[in-house]
């Protein structure tokens, strides 16, 4: 008997009892679907993080507000903007490793162009911001010195905002848009950097303070929400970081022993750590899903054992008609394999559907790779072989005479 004949016999036997066959493979279906989904969501999260790491730019330090004490009470980090434009200036001038630096304040607002409008992040900053993040223009120009100094009514659009406000072929440069009733001229459109990064509109820092975000109670004329700074070389990150810390402690007059009112972070490093954490969690989830595969395998073994008992007479007949022990073994092994492969295929289909649904509903990026699918199918085959072997072996060992006597 050939493998092909084994599969034909198996398919015939399984078709006779479709509900039982389906229930038998349900464990495998669920196991494989979970593995595929976890892989898809996990690698989607990794892709998103990698994109974020790329979008921050290389060798970037980020300085955000830290703890603040008011009358001996520690306030939440960031509850007060502790950084100022003169801090930015000092960092640029006094720390040689720093190539570029910029302060930002940000909020959200509706941007309007003619009949179209779009809700987006408004980031008030200086041209240095684009230098730090290595962010090139797709068209137009950055802010001029005069515009930065005099709160010019100009805006640079991220590619998503440009796409949402302007018809294709309609050049945004020179067009008028409005943010909170203030008309602004579009002077630049940025290159694409990734879906999470491109949904933004930049205005000069002074403009943002004067016209949009200045009314917020915790912003004074000089303060910024965060600072980003670019370090010249990879090896200088640690040094630059401690120099910035020393400089700011000095400027903010923080006595030694007291907590800083700012935090210097290396976002790329933090995200890489996060990436490792995601990988760990994903592996853990895959391990849990594998348990379901194991349970699926046991359920297949269980049903196969019952099936061998039920079909003892059939086995006796096949042996009397010339079936060798290995033919009987192959027949039942093929049945287990077909169950697992079919379950695996349905599981892959379910997993792909599920992760696409998750992607759509939760807005997560998911990425389905052939490797995960291949791995799941290999797992299914292995499950079929491992858990199908014992019942198949048992069937092949039956004495044909005894088997023929059973009713």
């Amino acid at each position, binding site marked *: 008997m050939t493998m092909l004949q084994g599969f034909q016999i198996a398919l015939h036997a399984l078709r006779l009892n479709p509900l039982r066959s389906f229930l038998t493979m349900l464990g495998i279906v669920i196991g494989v679907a979970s593995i595929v989904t976890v892989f898809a969501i996990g690698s989607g999260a990794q892709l998103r993080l990698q994109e974020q790491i790329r979008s921050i730019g290389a060798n970037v330090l980020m300085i955000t507000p830290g703890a603040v004490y008011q009358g001996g009470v520690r306030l939440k980090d960031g509850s007060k903007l502790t950084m100022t434009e003169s801090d930015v200036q000092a960092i640029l001038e006094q720390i040689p490793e720093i190539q570029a630096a910029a302060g930002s304040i940000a909020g959200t607002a509706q941007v309007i162009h003619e009949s179209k409008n779009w809700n987006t992040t408004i980031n008030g900053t200086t041209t240095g911001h684009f230098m730090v993040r290595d962010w090139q223009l797709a068209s137009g120009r950055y802010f001029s010195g005069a515009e930065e100094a005099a709160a010019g009514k100009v805006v640079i659009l991220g590619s998503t905002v440009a796409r949402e406000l302007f018809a294709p072929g309609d050049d945004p440069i020179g067009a008028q848009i409005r943010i909170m009733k203030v008309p602004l001229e579009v002077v630049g459109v940025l290159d694409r950097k990734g879906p999470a990064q491109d949904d933004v509109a930049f205005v000069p820092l002074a403009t943002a303070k004067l016209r949009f975000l200045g009314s917020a109670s915790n912003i004074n004329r000089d303060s910024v929400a965060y600072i980003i700074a670019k370090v010249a070389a990879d090896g200088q990150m640690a040094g630059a970081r401690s120099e910035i810390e020393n400089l700011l402690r000095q400027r903010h007059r923080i006595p030694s022993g007291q907590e800083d009112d700012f935090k210097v972070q290396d976002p790329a490093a933090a995200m890489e750590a996060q990436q490792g954490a995601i990988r760990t969690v994903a592996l853990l989830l895959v391990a849990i899903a594998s348990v379901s595969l194991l349970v699926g395998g046991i359920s297949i073994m269980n049903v196969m054992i019952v099936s061998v008992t039920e079909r003892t007479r*059939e086995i006796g007949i096949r*042996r*009397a*008609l*010339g079936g*060798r022990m290995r*033919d009987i073994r192959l027949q039942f092994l093929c049945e287990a394999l077909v169950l697992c492969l079919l379950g695996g295929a349905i599981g892959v289909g379910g997993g792909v559907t599920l992760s696409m649904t998750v992607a759509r509903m939760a807005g997560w990026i998911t990425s389905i790779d052939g490797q995960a699918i291949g791995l799941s199918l290999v797992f299914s085959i292995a499950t079929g072989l491992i858990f199908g072997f014992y019942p198949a072996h048992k069937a092949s060992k039956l004495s044909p*005479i005894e088997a*023929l006597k059973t009713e």
Partner: protein
Amino acid sequence: MTASPPLISLQSVSRTYRTDGIAVAAVRNVSFDIEQGEIVAVMGPSGSGKSTLMNMIGLLDLPSEGAVYLEGANVADLSEDRRSSLRARSIGFVFQSYNLLARHDAIENVALPLVYCGIGRKERLARAERSLEAVGMLHRAHHFPRQLSGGEQQRVAIARALIASPLIVLADEPTGALDSRTGAEILALFAALNRTGQTIVMITHDPGIATQCNRTIRLHDGELVGDETQVQILPKRSAAS
């Protein structure tokens, strides 16, 4: 004596079953030969060892003592796999309870032994058709066993036993579950097959059937108590419907 060895030769064959330490001698020291072209009736009361003997001739079981030779070869010297493939090619079994696979139609049942001869599906089905035709059951090729009468099921089972052109057909009470008229039809079918040269060994309780065979082997308590060769008195009427 012919130069070639007999088709089947049993030499001092005993078969003892051991259950819970109690030994039951189902067959004791039985010797006889079966030549090509014979039709042999095996008779004896229930429990006298007929089925046990048949299982050994059919390579399903091995003697505890003595030896069974198939065309001169001691079957105990063959591997289990070799005995299996001889069952597929050289032995045709017919059982009292037909033993058709309930979930396969007649033609699939008939073709089954050829699966174990490594023959492709197309040829299997073509040969199964011819075999069904030989027993007059071609018109029921796609019926399932439950849709067939007992006599029809036994005809399908005979077609299955014949499909690989076996050296010998072994029938264990083939008419035991049938009414006498249908039983006679099945017997006539065997007789017609024998006239074409097919060797047949048939267990039966019915002395009337035995008289239509050219030889009767009698067992009692596992021992051979009779081996008579009749003058040919096969039925004259035509067999296959």
